[in-house]
Every structure is written in C-alpha cells, then in structure tokens.
C-alpha cells in the first residue's frame, strides 16, 4: 500500500527514546508518559493504541511540545530527522528545544502537523475556514495572499470537500462533522508535513464517515509519502491503517511490533486481553465475552512493579510486583514487550508461556 521502499539503511523519521512526561500537580505527580520508546519510519503509519488515561494523547502532544501545564518532559529524547532547504539532512532533539523557540515553531506544521479529535473546538469559530488555512500557509511560506488563497483552494479540493470555493468562505459551525475533519486535514497538510499526527481523528464521527476519512488519509499518504502517527482506542482502525503498532497502558508501552504480529500473535497479556474482549462482528457471541478484570487504576494509585499486574491473568507474585518490567525485543519476531513472562527479572530470556 505504501510506496516508500524501506531500505535497511533508512533512518527513522522520528525516534522516541525513553520519553517521560510527568504532570506535577498539587496532589502529586501524574506519570502520563513513563518511558516510551519507538521509531516512526518515513511514509509509514504508526498506530498508537490504548485506553483512556494511557497517555497516548499526551505522547502526541509532546512530539510538538504543546503539553498542557503542569506537564513537563522529565526525561528521554525525541529525535527528528529532517532536511533543510538545500536538502542537507539534520537532526534535532525536540526535548532540548524550548516550546516557544524559533526551531520548534518551524517544526510545527512544517515537519509535524496535528489533527485533533474534535474538529469543532480546534477551529476558531470567528474566522473562516479559508482564512485559517491561509494563516497556516503564510506562517511557514513567504507567499502572497493570492498564492495562499490558491493553495488553500487546492488543499480543500484535494481532501474532497464539495464546492471548495464556497466552503473556504464559511465558518466551522456551518460544516458537518465529516467536512470539518476534512478541513482540519487540509489545514494540517498545508505545509506538506513529513509526519501527520492524527489524534483520534475519527472518534467523533459515524462509521460511514469514518470510512471516508480513513480512506482519505490513506490516499493522501500514498500521494505525499508522509508518515502518520495514528492515535486511537479503536483496534479496528489500527488493524486497518497501521504498519506498526505501539500498545500503551498507564503511560508505558507494553508491546510494540508489526501490525500483523500484534494482532495475530499478541505477546503481552494486556494486548491479548484487549483483543479478546472485542465482540466479533462475524458471529453471534454465544458465550460470555472474555474481559479483563478490574478497571484502569487512578493515576495517583499506580501499582508498583508492572502497572498491569492487578488485572493480569498471569500475575506472578514476588516477580511482577517487585520489579519494573524492561522493554525488550522478542527474538525472531518484530515485537518487543515489557513483561516478565518473556523476560524474567534475572535477565535470562525465555519465550514465556510456560509459567502462568
């Protein structure tokens, strides 16, 4: 599906390494992102999946340095590989940039763009769609009003908005949910970003509209060759769109890997439980739906050791509660997991499942 040939030498577009984003609130520290590492390859789609409170949205915002207060990047690195105007490659570590620095402002929109879940609240209601798209273009490119207008028209046409010229002069509240999301995507694409972060882009939409938007994202990726980081709680959307997947739970990545491996042979008990608990659309459930016991703990009551331990069917006393699992590759697969079933704390690696 994706045109970009991935050679062995190709460097990731973005490398996130042991990223920690903590919110220092009066009540205590909320570890929204607590040691997450992954790479995004150019032209590929990385799916970030997890339930509410797992830190997936904070992760997306951190890549753009737009974390809400009192959140701070406490540790880790986010290396972005880009090219300057002459085509010379360079690297920047987003963590080291001040959120309001010139570099960071150039990265936003130009290198990395973001599509939010709620297109209604992400547009200004007092400016027309066209003016908002033009603003984004003129912030990054030295073009005339007329050129920006033409480019905006081209963009809204590209994302499949009917009557594009008329829609440009309308306000966000005059558009339906699906059109608003298309306009949001048009704005995000205005500076041809190399990475598009889509944070729950279809959650507020109906299934038939969701299918349209996912189709659009796929087409645009084929045309522009941009990478997409797709943040969602919907495993169906991930299965459909992603090349690689990061599964998050309570701020930590519990499993990463190729989309086929993750869905066909999940290794972490959380991924396994999550996949089993979705009712199948193919057949009537006669039996009880397998579910994960308990609920997601409150961020102030994080369990010690492995955060999934109180809900885990394979919980090992004396192991899982005393040590933090380390994120390690599973040999012979594309996957990496943070689970003692696969990597006992003494360091010797077994392939799991014999003890439960």
């Amino acid at each position, binding site marked *: 599906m994706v045109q970009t040939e991935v050679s062995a030498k190709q460097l990731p577009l973005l490398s996130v390494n042991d990223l920690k984003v903590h919110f220092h609130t009066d009540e205590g520290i909320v570890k929204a992102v607590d040691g997450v590492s992954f790479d995004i390859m150019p032209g590929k789609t990385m799916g970030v999946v997890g339930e509410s409170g797992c830190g997936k949205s904070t992760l997306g915002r951190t890549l753009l340095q737009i974390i809400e207060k009192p959140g701070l990047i406490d540790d880790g690195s986010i290396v972005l590989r880009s090219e300057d105007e002459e085509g010379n490659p360079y690297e920047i570590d987003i963590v080291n940039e001040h959120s309001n620095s010139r570099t960071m402002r150039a990265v936003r929109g130009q290198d990395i763009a973001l599509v939010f879940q709620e297109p209604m609240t992400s547009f200004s209601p007092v400016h027309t769609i066209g003016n908002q798209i033009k603003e984004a273009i003129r912030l990054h490119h030295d073009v005339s009003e007329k050129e920006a207008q033409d480019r905006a028209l081209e963009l809204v046409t590209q994302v499949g908005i009917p009557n594009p010229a008329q829609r440009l002069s309308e306000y966000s509240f005059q558009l339906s949910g699906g059109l608003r999301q298309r306009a949001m995507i048009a704005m995000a694409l205005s500076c041809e970003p190399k990475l598009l972060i889509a944070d729950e882009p279809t959650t507020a939409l109906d299934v038939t509209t969701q299918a349209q938007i996912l189709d659009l994202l796929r087409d645009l990726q084929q045309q522009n060759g941009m990478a997409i980081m797709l943040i969602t709680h919907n495993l*169906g959307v991930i299965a459909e769109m992603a090349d690689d997947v990061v599964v998050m739970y309570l701020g930590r990545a519990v499993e990463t890997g190729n989309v086929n491996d993750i869905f066909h042979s999940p290794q972490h008990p959380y991924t396994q439980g999550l996949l089993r608990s979705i009712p199948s*659309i193919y057949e009537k*459930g006669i039996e009880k739906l397998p579910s994960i016991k308990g609920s997601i703990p409150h961020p102030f009551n994080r369990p010690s050791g492995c955060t999934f331990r109180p809900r885990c069917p394979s919980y090992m006393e004396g192991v899982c509660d005393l040590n933090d699992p380390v994120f390690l590759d599973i040999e012979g697969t594309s996957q990496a997991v943070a689970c003692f079933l696969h990597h006992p704390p003494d360091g010797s690696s077994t392939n799991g499942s014999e003890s439960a």
Partner: protein
Amino acid sequence: MAEATVETTNTTESGTLLEVNNLVKHFPIQKGFLKRTVGSVRAVDDVSFSVTQGKTLGLVGESGCGKTTTSRCILRAIDPTSGQILFRKEDGETVDVATMPYQPLRDLRRDMQMIFQDPYGSLNPRMSLFDIVGEPLLVHGMKSSSERADRVAELLRLVGLRPEYMRRFPHAFSGGERQRIGIARALALNPRLVVADEPVSALDVSVQAQVINLLQEIQESLNLTYLFVAHDLSVVRHIADEVAVMYVGKIVELGDTEKIFANPKHPYTSALLSSVPIPDPSVRQDRIILQGEVANPANPPSGCYFHPRCEYATDQCKTEEPQLELIDEGRWVSCHHAKDLDLTGLSAK
C-alpha cells in the same frame, strides 16, 4: 403501512412485550419573534417494530437517525406526535403508552426503565449510591429507609458492586462502575423492559466487555427485554436477537441479527456493515465508501431518503417512497429493489 393504524383493537400477539406502530415524532422549527412554526424535523418518521418478551432488539443507525428519539418516545420521556406504543402489562392487558394519561403512566414506569449512555452525566454527583439507586424505590412508595437499604444492597450485589459502597458518591467510581450503578438504578423496580441507550459506548474496551456480560447475565436471570440502542455494530451483533436499522427517521431494515449481518437486503445496511473497521489486519477489505452526507431530517430528499447516496438508485427511487415490506420470513426491508439486489454482508471466514 397506513392500514396498520386502523387495527387499534388488535391486541399484541402472545410473547410480544412491546409493539410500536407508525410512531412519528416531529420537532417543530420555530422562527421569528412570534415563534411561528416554519417546518419540522422529522426525527422519527413512521416507525413500526415489535419486541418479544425476554429478547433484545438492537436499534442501530448513525447520529441523527432518530434512534434515541424513538427510545425516548417509547418511555414517554417525550410525547410522540402520533402512532401507537402497545405495551403488554404483567396481567396480560395491553395498553397504549402513547396516549396514556399521566397517573397510570406513572405506575407503568415501574415496568419500563432506562440505562443512559454517559455514566458521568447520568448520576447526580451530590447523591450517594443509596440515594441514587434508592430514589426509584422512594418515588414508587417504599418509604422505609431500612427496607430501601436492603434492596439497594441487593441491587448493588447483583451488578457486581460491594454493598458497603452504598454511602459513597459517584466520583469515587470509575466509568465502568458508574455504569453498573446506572444499571442497578434501572433494575430497582423490577422492570420488564429496559431501554439501554448506548450503554457501553462511553466505556473502554476492556471494561465494555464486563458491562456487556453483566447486561446479558441479568437479562437471563431476570427475564428482561432489552431495547438496545447502539451505533457499534459488533456490540449489537453480540447482544441483539433482532436488529432494526434506521436511516433519517425511518427503519430501512428489520429482522434477525444473524440474517441481516450475513445477508443484508438494504444497500444502506450493506454499506454500514462494510464501514466497520475489523480488528484483523489480514482482512483489509474493499469497503463501500458512501458518498456525501446523511440527509437532513428537516429537509429530506424526495422518494427514498437514501437515494442520493445509493449506488443502485433508479428513477423510481427518486420519486417514489419505498415502504417497509416483508420480503422473507421475519425480514422487513424498505427498498424498491430489495429482492433484486445481491449485497455483501459479513460472515465468518
């Protein structure tokens, strides 16, 4: 369907708990200083279906298709514009909820209860669990506090919460637990019909499965009948015996869940099914991408409401409105070409 309205004497057949005939709800659009009615939103436009005692009817459709309005009309939370809502009481008598006077309706509400979508908005943060779950009991005449406490404890146990939590307030509970509280409240008066409006769509996947299981367990043990309003088709397939698919205020297809999912007869149902993302990367199927947007219920298109988006539309569809017709055993479809179309559904591979 006009002929069905005259048969008011027709008592619902045995086993049918709820029968809805030609239900219509129009909301007026008012404009100007004098609030003149300039038009109406046809939220529910001639809807008929029935639900069998102890079974689950899934009402599916996209936002704005009228599924919530239909469910609210059935409970008389809003008054329908016209139509019949026949409910069979425990003593076998059939009553029309749509035209019932206030006092008997109040008593009837014991039999029909609702579970809401939003577990945060539907529980009063200033009321303890005892007050929340005990309120329907108090309203319906259980004055003794200790009796209520016993019943609340029993209900909390039934939905998997500890009775000791009775004096706590909703903020202390997670989304899934709050939804259990909402279920306990709905069950307080031993209802026979439970209208569940998107009861699991606000929950996380891992918690959603628990609540679905709970709903099925209590259905079995209490012989409840569900009207299950949802947009998540995989949840509906799991829980519903029958499905009614709605589009712009009308039912376009109604029938057995298995048959509809495996072999849809209405182009909209087929498109809806094909839009669902399947959590399996090896089935990245060719989907039917519907063009355009859902029609505006204040200004619906002529003929079949679905025709501007339908790839099979003919001239007949543009002018003539299709009726919901029985095309197979227990299978109702509202499409001029239902019998000729060969549509793809979803079946296990």
